[in-house]
Each structure stands twice: as C-alpha cells, then as structure tokens.
C-alpha cells in the first residue's frame, strides 16, 4: 500500500494535463494546486439540477487567493468536462454569484450569504468555517480533509455523490 503519497497522487492526477502548473515548487503553490484539484474533484461528485445541464459549469472563486488558485484551476480543467459540461472558472471580484454553480471561498472572502438553494459553497482551508458553506476544506496534519455541513445539505437542492458524502466528515457540532 502506498499510504502517505495521497497528495502527490491527487496532484498527479489533476496536473496530468495542467501543463506548466507543475512548475511551481514551493509549498504555498503546491497547497494552492492541491486546493484547485480538490475543487475540481468535488465538482465531479455533484449531480447538478437538470436545468443547468445545458450550460457550462461555472466555478467561481472568491477571496484573497481566488486569482492564483483560479488560475491553477483554470489550467487544470482546460480541455476537460464535467458531466459533459464545459467548465468555466471565474476568479474576478465581480462575480455574479447567481451564475455560479460552485463557489469556493478563500481567505478574505465574505461569508456565504446567498439564499439560493442551488448554489454550492465550499470554504477553503484559509477561510473561516462558514456555516453557510456545504463543504469546508481543512488542513489536518499534512492532509486536507473534507467537512460536510449536513444542515446545508438537507436544505440544498444539489445532490452529492454518496461516495463523497461517505468521505466527508461532519462539521463540528453536527
């Protein structure tokens, strides 16, 4: 078994086609790449409402690292599709949240406030745990782990792959 190499596996799988992104070598960049890979993979386990399936999957990043992570994510998903939908990555400050299907919050981003039940918020490791996000990434030791907000899950119209739900840990207090 190859325990302990999960991060490199995850990155390897994500960066296999993200040409040039792997040139970053320092730990900060690698951590951002890891977050980009998590964002992409989480998006693969979500079953989006039928009304959205004719439109590109729009992933919006907000906060201080939105640009850098967004750039890495954009490079990583270039040429890929999720559920036969093209992937658009938006990391600008003028994001129209209603056009996004998945919103990733980094440090400095305001808390998730949309009342739309079709928006899926993911809080990054550097973002304070937001009670409005469905998922939250937290660094545990040298690994990222996925937290699940069951209350949001129950309220949301978005359906999550059970395999991902099984992988996620409930947020504290749930």
């Amino acid at each position, binding site marked *: *078994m*190859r*325990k302990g*190499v*999960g*991060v490199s*596996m*995850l990155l*390897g*799988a994500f960066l*296999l086609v993200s040409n040039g992104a792997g040139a970053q070598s320092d730990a900060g960049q690698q951590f951002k790449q890891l977050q980009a890979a*998590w964002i992409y*993979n989480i998006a*693969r*386990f979500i079953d989006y409402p039928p009304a959205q399936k004719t439109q590109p999957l729009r992933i919006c990043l907000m906060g201080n690292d939105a640009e850098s992570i967004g750039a890495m994510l954009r490079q990583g998903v270039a040429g890929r599709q*999720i*559920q*036969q939908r093209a992937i658009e990555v938006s990391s600008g400050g003028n994001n129209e949240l209603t056009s996004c299907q998945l919103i990733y919050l980094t440090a400095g981003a305001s808390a998730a406030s949309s009342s739309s039940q079709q928006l899926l918020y993911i809080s990054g490791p550097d973002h304070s745990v937001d009670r409005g996000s469905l998922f939250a990434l937290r660094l545990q030791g040298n690994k990222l782990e*996925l937290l699940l907000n069951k209350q949001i899950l129950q309220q949301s119209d978005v359906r999550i*792959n*059970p*395999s*991902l739900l*099984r*992988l996620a840990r409930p947020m504290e207090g749930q």
Partner: protein
Amino acid sequence: MMKISLSAKVVSSLVSLVLLALVSLYISITYHVSSAYKNKQVAESSAMAELLGSMVSAPLVFAQQEGAEMVLAALSTDPAVTFAAVYDAQNSGYDLFASYGSVDPDMVFRPEASEQFTETSLQMVRPILLDGSQIGWLHLQTSLRPLQLQLTELSKSMALALVIALSGAVLLAILITRSLLDPLLRLRATSSKIAETKDYSLRVEQKSADEIGHLVSAFNSMLDDIEGFVQEKNDRQQQIQQLNAQLEDKVNERTRQLESSMTQLHATLQNLQLAQRQMVEQEKLASLGSLVAGVAHEINTPVGVAVTMSTTFAEKLQQFLQKVSAGQLRRAELAEFEHDSVEGLELLQNSLGKAARLIQSFKKVAVDQTSEERREFRLDEVVGEVMRTLRHQLKNRNIQYQIDLPEDVLMDSYPGPLGQVIGNLFNNAVIHGFDGLDTGVIQICGRVDGQLVELQVIDNGRGIAQKLLHRVFEPFVTSKLGQGGSGLGLHIVHNIVLNILGGEISVDTQVEQGACFVLKLPLVAPIKEVRSE
C-alpha cells in the same frame, strides 16, 4: 443367442431406465443449478462491483486509501466475497490502491473487464468510472463454495432418490414380471402340450381383461381357427382319399373298357384287313372273270366257224361217201367235193388258227395277271392284248377305244400288274365314266420322257365329282356304293403303280367333261417285293 429370462430383462430394463432417468435428471439439475447459480453470482457480483466502484470512487479520486479500505472492509459481512481490490488507473498504468481478503494463488490480475470462473471462485474485473471516465479497476473474487455445498447436498438427495427409485423399480419389475409371466407361462405350457399331443381343443384360461388377457384371448381364438382348419383339412383329406379311391376304380374300369375296346378294334381291324384282302382277291377274280368272258367272246367266232365248217364238211363227206358206196358219184361231184373240202379245210384251219392265237394271247395275259412275273415286253403289245380281252364290254354300246402308243417302247417291268392297271382304268371309264351314256371315246396314249413313259387313259364321260376327287384313290370310295361297286378299283391301281411299277398316278377331271388318268412309269421298274392287295 443369450439365454436371459424375461424377468431379468424386465428388471434390468426398469433399473436401467430409472438409472438413466435419474442420472439424466441429476446432470440436468446440476447443470441448471450451476448455471443459475453462476448467472446469479455474476449478476450479484456485477452489481456489487458497480456499487463498490461507485463507493470507492471518491476515496480513489481524493486518494483517501483509508476510505477505500473501509468500504472494502464492509465486505466482511458477505462470506461469499473472499477478495476485493481497487486499482488506481488515473495515471498511466494501474496501481493497487486498496484491497480486502486474499486472492487465489493462481490468479493474476489483468486490467480488462472480465468474469472468469475457476474451480472455487468467480474472478470479476470491472472498471471504476466517474463521470464516464475510468479512474480505476475493481477486482472482485467471490467463492463458489456455496454452490459446491449446494451441489453436494443435491448429490446426496439424488443418491437417496436413486436408491429409493431403484428399489421401487426392482419391486415394480418383479410385480410386472409376475403379472406378465404367469399368463405367458400358461401360454407356453399350453403351446408345448398342443405341439406334443396335437390336441387343438386345449385352451388357456383367461384371468384378466388387460393386454395379457387380450393376448390369451387372441391365442385361444387362434387355436379355434387352427382347430377349424385342422378339422377341415382332415375332412378334405378324407374326401380326397375317397375321391382317389373312386377315381382309381373308375380308371381301372375305364382301362378295362379301353382294353376291351382295343381288343374289339383289333379284331375288327383284322376282319377289315381280311375283308379288304378278300375284296382285292374278288376284284382279281372279277378281273379274271372278265378276262375269261373276253376270251370266250373272242374265240367264239372262229370256233363257231370251225364247228359250222366241220359240221358242214361232215354232212358233205357223208353225202360223198354214200354216193361213192352207191356208185353214183360223178366226176363233177368229185371235183366239187374236192374243191369244197379244200376251201372248208382252209377255212377251218384259219378259224382254228385264229382261235389258237387268241388263246395263246389270252394265256399270256392270264399268266401275266396271275403270276406278276417281271419280264421285258413291248408296251403297245401288252396294252393291245389287254384291250382285246376287254373290248367285249363295249358290245352293244357305241363306245370306241383308241390306242395311240409308240411301237418301240420296251419296258422291263411287270406286265401283269400293268395290264390290271389298264383294265381297271378301262372298266372304271366304262362303268362310271359312261354310266347312262351310249356314246363315248376311251383313249390310251403315251410317250417316252427320258427313263419314264407317260401313259394317259382319257375318257370323255361324266368325270369325277369334286367331293370324291381328293379321296378317289382311297379304298372303298365309289360313286356306285350299294350298286355293286367295291370302291377298290382305283385304290388297287394306286397301290400297283406306286408299290409294284415304281411310278406315280394323278387324275385331272372336269364334271361332265371326262377324266384323264396320267401314269408316269419308269421303263425299268424298281426291284421290289411284289405285294398284292
């Protein structure tokens, strides 16, 4: 031929049938159970692989090995699953990501979707897909032990069923055999007794109304028929024997009658032959009588003249002697007596000489006709002499005969039979040809043709009726039957020509225009034994 009893055949057949049926059933059930189990196992394993693939997709994507192993560990609740492994295929090649249980030692993982049965397990490999993309392989190994246990239990059940079925089959066979054999043995015993005693009145008791009972009934019916046939055969044989006996009696009686008839016929034939010979002899005698009559007729004139002359001369001699004694004889009377005596003696000599010649001629004819002597002779002389003996028959009838024969025909033959032939043909013409006619001509002509002489006796009389023509040479054929005709004349002619003279004879005739008998005779007759008819 193998001597196997019927009961053994029935038992062995039933046992074999049951054995065959159960083995076939066992094989069929085993096959279907195995097939159904395997299909079910493939379906269940396929569903499980799909579920597992879905469950481990997230741990695989997020490289959460613990998560994958935790999912696989849940398989421990299913004892059929003995091994499961997840391979990561997100990068080039494939790497073992998580596993559960132990794989069969001989099993080598190959990255391709497949299901393969080994002796103890089902090896199934399925791709792990996420959003249509393969992210890994799932290798699932499920044990066939439940199937083996199930088959073992099935085998035990089948073995028990086999024992029960075989026992039942043997028992059933014995019962069937007994129920079949008992009437069959009775049939055999009756058949043997019938064959031994030929007593077809024996019958087999019918104890049931089933097929065996029908067989017994049919056997008894057959015996009825045979008994009837035998009785009928015996009756017919008896009838045939009676008929044979009667037939033999009839044959013997008919044989006796035939023998008697044959004897009578033989006697009759002998009588007929005797009568025929007598009639032939009579015919010859008649011919001789005619000859004698002819002779008498011919010599009557010269002898009469001689008698008259001798009487006249005797009277004149007496008158002359009286005158001499009385001395009254005159010279002129002496001269007259001398002259008359000379003339009378000459006339007397002439008449007696003529009579002598006639007698000599008749004698030759008579000798010829009675001796059948063979000699050389002139044809015209013999025919002329014969005709002289016959011409008296033409007296008082205006019937002429003409002889036109060459003078130098010399024959070495039998003049007597030839004369008889001429005479018979002449008489035939006079009696039959000119019957009721006062005028006519009979021609006898001939010519020499090589070594043959052809004689024709022709008359212009009534001819021969057509109905008699083809039988004219047969004996007793005559147009004067009952009027004195013997019917043997032409028959004798035919026999003489063929058998004595060695020639042949034919006749050509036209009714009321006459008949022509043609004789072709060899100049030199063959040397044969002369037979007289």
